C-alpha cells in the first residue's frame, strides 16, 4: 500500500499489479510472509532489501517461476494463476535478469525477437524490422544497426537491447534485477533515460537494487522488504538514505564505515610506469601498509586492469612492481602470490570462487602444502578463516554456489586471509551485488586486515563506498591517473568530476596528499 502524503491525491487508477498476503516457504525457510505489494501503471518502484529478504522470491513468483503457498497475484484486479513463466509473459510481465540472456552471435534484430511467442512460423521480415526499430527508438537506441551481432555491443547497449526485447513482448510490467552492476556511469544514464521514457508511456517498472543512490535518482516509490515481510512502501521523497538503510536492517546504521587511518611508513607496494595496451597508459602508485586505497574510475578507466596486472593476470603488462622493496615480475599469478599479493576478482562467480566445490575446499584452495594433506588441520584452518570473515562455520560442507552473494564475497576474501606474512590485498569491486548487512561485515574485516599491517588496494564504482571506506583515493580516467587524495580532503562530487570529465588533460598529474 502506498502511503500518500497527508491530504494528497485520492487513490489513482487501478493498480496494474498487486500482491496480497503472499507467502512462500522452502522447507523450513519462510522466504515471504504475507507480503503486500501494489504498483500503479507508469510507476517506477524500487524494491530494496538485504539478501534473504525475499526480493528474488517475490520476483520469481511474479514471473511464474514459483507458485505461492498462499495469497493472490492480481493484474488489473484480475486474480492470476501464474503456473509457469510463459503465463507471466502472456500477461505482460517481463524480467531483465542480472545475467543477460542475449545470444552474442545473433543480430540485434534476432535477439529482440528471441523467445517471443507471438512471432509466427512464417514471419514477414520487414514488418518485424519496423517493429524492432520502433522499440529501439523508444529506448533511445535509434542509431543502432539492427544487423550487428549482439556480442559486439557494449554491455550497456546489451542491457538496453534486453529491455527492447521485453518491450517487443508487449511488456506492461518490466522487472529489472540489479541492472546497473558493471555499467559505466554514461551507460547507467542511458538506461535511466530509457526507463523514464518507458514509464511516461505507461510501462510499469519494478527496479530491484542494492544501490540506494539509484533508488533516489530514478524511482518514484520504494518498497523495503526485510526477512520476508514488506516493511514499508512509500514515495521516494518521504524517506532518506539512512532511513532506507534503517528499514532494511531494522537497526540504525551509523557505523557503516569504520574510521580511517593514514600511514607514514615506507611504502609496501610500489608500481611504476604500468602500461597495459588498450587499457592503461602510464600508471604509478606508492602506498604503505595499514591503509585502504581506492582507485575510483569508470569501466573504461582501466582501474580494474591495473589490479589484475599487479596480481599477475595480465600477460601484456609492462612496468615495475616492488613489494617491500623487492621487485616482482608481472605476468605470473604464482609469483605475485609468493610476493604477498592476494587478489579478489570482480567476477567472483566465474573467477573468484569454485561454485561447485564445498565452502571448505574454497577456503583452503590456496593453502595446500606439498606432501600428504591432513584434513583435520585443514578443517581447523577453514573454521578459523570462516569465523574471521563472518561465515557460519557449520556450513563448511555446503557448496559455494548455495551461498548468497554477500557470503560468496566473504568466502572469496576468507580464502586469501590468515597468512603470516603481511601482504597486499587487491580487490576489484569488493561489494558488488552484496547486501547492506554483508557489506558492513566486509568493511569491518577489511579494516581489521589493515590494522594488522596489510595494505588493501581496491577499485569500486560505488562512490559512496569509495569516499566512505578509503583512507586514500586515487582517481583514474581513461588509463591515466588524475589525482590522489586523502579521505578528508575530497568529496564525492570531486571524485565524480575526476572520473567523468577531469578538468585538465589526462597525463598532467594533480597530486594532493
Amino acid at each position: 500500500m502506498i502511503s500518500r502524503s497527508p491530504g494528497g491525491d485520492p487513490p489513482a487508477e487501478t493498480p496494474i499489479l498487486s500482491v496480497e498476503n503472499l507467502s512462500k516457504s522452502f522447507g523450513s525457510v519462510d522466504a515471504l510472509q504475507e507480503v503486500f505489494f501494489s504498483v500503479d501503471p507508469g510507476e517506477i518502484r524500487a524494491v530494496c532489501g538485504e539478501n534473504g529478504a525475499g526480493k528474488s522470491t517475490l520476483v520469481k513468483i511474479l514471473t511464474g517461476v514459483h507458485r505461492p503457498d498462499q495469497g493472490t497475484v492480481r493484474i488489473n484486479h484480475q486474480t492470476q494463476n501464474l503456473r509457469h513463466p510463459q503465463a507471466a509473459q502472456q500477461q505482460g510481465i517481463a524480467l531483465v535478469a542480472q545475467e543477460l540472456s542475449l545470444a552474442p552471435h545473433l543480430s540485434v534484430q534476432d535477439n529482440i525477437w528471441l523467445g517471443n511467442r507471438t512471432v509466427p512460423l512464417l514471419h514477414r521480415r520487414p514488418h518485424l524490422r519496423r517493429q524492432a526499430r520502433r522499440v529501439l527508438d523508444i529506448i533511445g537506441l535509434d542509431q543502432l544497426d539492427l544487423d550487428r551481432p549482439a556480442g559486439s555491443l557494449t554491455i550497456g547497449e546489451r542491457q538496453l537491447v534486453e529491455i527492447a526485447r521485453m518491450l517487443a513482448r508487449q511488456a506492461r510490467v518490466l522487472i529489472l534485477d540489479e541492472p546497473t552492476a558493471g555499467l559505466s556511469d554514461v551507460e547507467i544514464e542511458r538506461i535511466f533515460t530509457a526507463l523514464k521514457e518507458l514509464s511516461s508511456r505507461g510501462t510499469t517498472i519494478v527496479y530491484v537494487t542494492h544501490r540506494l543512490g539509484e533508488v533516489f535518482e530514478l524511482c518514484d516509490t520504494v518498497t523495503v522488504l526485510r526477512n520476508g515481510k514488506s516493511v514499508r512502501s512509500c514515495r521516494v521523497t518521504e524517506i532518506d538514505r539512512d532511513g532506507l538503510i534503517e528499514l532494511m536492517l531494522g537497526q540504525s546504521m551509523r557505523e557503516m564505515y569504520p574510521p580511517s587511518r593514514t600511514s607514514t611508513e615506507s611504502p609496501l607496494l610500489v608500481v611504476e610506469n604500468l602500461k597495459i595496451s588498450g587499457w592503461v597508459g602510464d600508471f604509478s602508485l606508492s602506498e604503505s601498509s595499514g591503509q585502504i586505497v581506492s582507485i575510483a574510475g569508470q569501466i573504461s578507466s582501466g582501474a580494474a586492469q591495473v589490479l589484475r596486472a599487479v596480481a599477475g593476470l595480465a600477460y601484456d603488462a609492462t612496468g615495475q612492481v616492488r613489494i617491500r622493496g623487492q621487485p616482482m615480475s608481472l605476468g605470473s599469478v604464482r609469483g605475485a602470490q609468493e610476493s604477498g599479493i592476494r587478489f579478489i576478482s570482480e567476477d567472483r562467480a566465474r573467477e573468484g570462487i569454485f561454485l561447485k566445490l564445498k565452502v571448505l575446499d574454497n577456503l583452503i584452495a590456496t593453502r595446500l602444502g606439498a606432501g600428504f594433506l591432513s584434513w583435520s588441520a585443514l578443517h581447523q584452518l577453514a573454521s578459523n578463516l570462516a569465523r574471521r570473515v563472518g561465515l557460519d562455520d557449520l556450513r563448511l560442507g555446503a557448496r559455494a554456489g548455495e551461498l548468497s552473494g554477500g557470503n560468496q564475497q566473504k568466502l572469496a576474501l576468507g580464502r586469501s586471509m590468515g597468512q603470516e606474512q603481511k601482504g597486499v590485498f587487491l580487490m576489484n569491486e569488493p561489494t558488488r551485488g552484496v547486501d547492506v548487512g554483508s557489506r558492513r561485515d566486509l568493511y569491518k574485516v577489511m579494516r581489521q586486515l589493515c590494522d594488522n599491517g596489510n595494505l588493501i588496494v581496491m577499485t569500486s564504482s560505488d562512490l559512496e563506498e569509495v569516499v566512505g571506506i578509503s583512507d586514500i583515493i586515487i582517481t583514474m580516467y581513461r588509463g591515466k591517473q588524475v589525482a590522489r587524495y586523502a579521505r578528508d580532503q575530497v568529496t564525492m562530487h570531486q571524485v565524480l568530476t575526476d572520473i567523468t570529465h577531469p578538468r585538465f588533460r589526462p597525463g598532467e598529474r594533480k597530486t594532493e596528499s
Partner: protein
Amino acid sequence: MLLILTVGALATPGFISTPSLAALLTSISFIGCVAVGMTFITLSGNIMSLCLGATLSASSLIFMAGLSFGVGPALALGLGFGTLFTAAQGLLVGYLRANPIIVSIAALALLVGSADYLTGGQRIYSPGDSLVPLTGTLWGMPVEALFLLASAVIGQIILSYTRFGRHIHMVGSNLKAARAAGVSIWRTVTGSYLLAGFFTALAGILLSARYGSGDMELGVGYDYDAIASVLVGGTAIHGGEGSVTRTLLGVAVISAIQVVLLLYGFSQQMQYLMTGLIVLTVIMLHSLGERHS
C-alpha cells in the same frame, strides 16, 4: 538401484558360482584399472579420452615384445609407453588448451596406424611362463583384482590427500578460478593424463599376461566401459566432482550388468546397447538433479 541390481544378480542362475564370480572379478579388474585412469581425465574437466583402449592394447604389445629383454625391462617399457604417450596428450590439452576429445581421437588414429604398420596386425606371444606370478590367484583372489584394489587406493589417496589431487578438482570445477588461484593448469592436466596412461598401461600388461599375448584388439571398447563406469559411479562429466571410489562402484555395476546379460544369453551387441542406455539414463538423472538444486 543398487539393491535391485544385487537382487537381480543373485537371482540369476550361475551368478553365485565361484568361477562366475572369479570371472567377474577378473573382468572388473581390467576395466577397473582403465576406469581409475579415466577418472583423472574426467575430473580435470577434460571429459574423456577415446584413446585409452588403444593405449591399453599398445602397452600390451610393447610389454610382450619387451619380454625378450626380461620381465623387468618389459614392465618398464610397457608402463613407460602408456604413461608417456598419454601424458603427451595431456600436454597438448593442458598447455595448448586443445580440445581433449579431438586430441584423443588424433592420438587414437596415430596409435592404431603406427601399430598396424609396425606389427602388420599380428599378435605377439609371450615366451615361456615367466609371467605366471602376474596371473593366477593370491590369497584366493585373482591377482588382477589385487592390482585394481591397489590402483584404486593409490588413486583415491592422490585425489584426496595431495595438493595435486585438490588441484585436479579445482581445475575441473572452474578453469578461470583455478588460474586466478595460482594453480598451474598445464601441470595439473598433464599430471592427470599421465596417471591415466599409467593405470591403462597397467591394465594392458595384466591383460596380456593373462591371455599370453598382446595385440591391438585387446583394448577395443575399454574406453566406453571405462567412461560408463566413471559416469555411473557418479563423477560429473564436466569435471570437478567425483572420486575413484565412486568409479569403483560404477565399474562393479556395469560389469555386473554385463555378466548378468551374458548369463541370460544376450549377445555382445545387446551388452553395448544396455551400457549405452545406462550411461544415457545416468547423465539424464544427473542433469535433472542439477536443475533442481
